[in-house]
């Protein structure tokens, strides 16, 4: 029992290092945050910078409390979350389909993938005027921006994931006479799960950026809109408060997707 014990799944997870609170890294990380806050507060108190550019922590805290107790804020938050989510689903499904097709067919991959590579890193905001024309000034164009943004990393990682599938597993599926849809659902997708999860992770990040950026440009709702409005009213404390909430949400979402990936990594080892 003892020797099978260290092969078992939970043991593998535990052996990542010393416990959270006895790890010096944890303390260093906390020290960094405390240090930054101290410098921030000192700068705010010194009055060196123009008025509210660096508001005091207390002001930010008050703004944060006001923000979180305002139901309207949650409405805007849900608008943005809905746009990002819908964009991720649309862009993700398209990316996955295109990626699988490019990975499966040498001809398609060779002909079209260079375009993905070159379009991938260009700032998608250049498409925003076109998206406004196609989908209007409402949430439609923001969803489109989110979808376009996450399409590229997801398509590229799906194509790469498709190509790294162990070829013998495909022959196993064929030898049991699996249909095309069974091949996709039971072999291709599970075999490329790790690269795809990574792609979705990158995709989520750029979908948030794309949607928010579009909201700051032209909209009347959503977090991007609120931030740009706070900026134009020079309400710096609320702007920082909203950025803090945004950071926390982004970190949480990323950790969530990452957790799915890590869970798989442990299971497959």
């Amino acid at each position: 029992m003892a020797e099978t014990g260290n092969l078992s799944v939970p043991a593998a997870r535990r052996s990542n290092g010393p416990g959270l609170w006895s790890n010096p890294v944890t303390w260093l990380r906390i020290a960094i945050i405390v240090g930054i806050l101290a410098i921030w507060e000192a700068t705010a108190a010194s009055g060196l910078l123009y008025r509210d550019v660096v508001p005091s922590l207390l002001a930010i805290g008050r703004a944060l409390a006001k923000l979180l107790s305002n139901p309207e804020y949650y409405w805007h938050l849900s608008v943005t979350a809905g746009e990002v989510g819908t964009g991720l689903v649309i862009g993700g499904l398209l990316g996955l389909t295109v990626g699988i097709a490019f990975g499966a067919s040498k001809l398609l991959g060779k002909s079209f993938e260079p375009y993905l590579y070159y379009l991938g890193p260009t700032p998608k905001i250049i498409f925003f005027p076109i998206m406004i024309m196609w989908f209007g000034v409402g949430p439609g164009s923001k969803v489109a921006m989110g979808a376009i943004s996450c399409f590229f990393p997801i398509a590229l990682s799906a194509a790469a994931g498709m190509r790294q599938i162990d070829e013998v597993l495909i022959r196993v599926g064929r030898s049991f006479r699996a249909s095309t849809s069974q091949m996709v659902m039971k072999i291709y997708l599970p075999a490329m799960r790790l690269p795809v999860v990574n792609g979705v992770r990158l995709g989520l990040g750029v979908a948030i950026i794309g949607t928010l950026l579009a909201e700051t440009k032209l909209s009347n709702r959503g977090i991007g809109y609120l931030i740009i409005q706070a900026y134009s009213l020079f309400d710096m404390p609320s702007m920082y408060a909203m950025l803090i909430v945004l950071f926390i949400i982004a970190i949480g979402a990323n950790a969530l997707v990452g957790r799915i990936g890590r869970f798989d990594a442990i299971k497959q080892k």
Partner: protein
Amino acid sequence: MATNAAATTHASNDILVVDDIVKSFNTADGSLTAVDHVSLSVKQGEFMAVIGPSGCGKSTLFNVIGGLVDGYEGNVTVGGERVNGPHPSIGMVFQEESTFPWRTVTDNVAFPLEIAGMDKAQRYERARHFIALVGLDGFENRYPAELSGGMRQRVAIARTLASEPKILLMDEPFGALDEQTRLLLGDKVLQIQHQLKQTCLLITHNITEAVQLADRVLVMTYRPGKVKRIVDINLPRPRSSEIVSSEAFGRYVAQIWSDLREEASRGMRDEEQQRAGAHS
């Protein structure tokens, strides 16, 4: 129809007939013939082994019989029916590691049943039966990464058996294993074959394994792979791995080795020349 005539000249209890297969590949330096006019037939319930030096075209022949490649000359027929793509009567066990790493042992073994649309309870029950047959009971919920190489190969065999093929086609299933494990797994395969009256075609480059398991051993030449000789193994059944120390066993091994040595050394010379050519 010339092809049908060829097939019907074989005895009616030949369940698998491989008729005059030629398979070539286009490579950077011209066409390479991997399998050259190979014919063989396997009777119902028979265990046949195909042995040959590395690179002689065994896996190519395996893929042709399994219906996984096309673009070859000749015919493969199963029960008189021409193989055109993977045939339901043929179950394949591959040379490479082939378990699905994201599936447990049970879900791996149940895979062909899942493909066939069997419901969950029923296919798990069947899977458990075949897991027990290869001696892996107790490991049902493990993932392949948690098993040894020999255990993973047994999972692959159980998975193929679960599809209940009329013909079990195996390509060096124990190639990556150590000698002891190989002998013991050989025993397991013999037991299963005896129990299920399974028709088997085993591809191997291991003489001991071929003689231990087979009723007939087909020796292939080095590239291009032709049939050099077919040796009948008249050892009593049921057999076990203890047989490898018997005198009769030794004679068969010596006989096959003398055939194979010629081919293997020809192969080595060939490869050395190729290397020398590449360096100059």
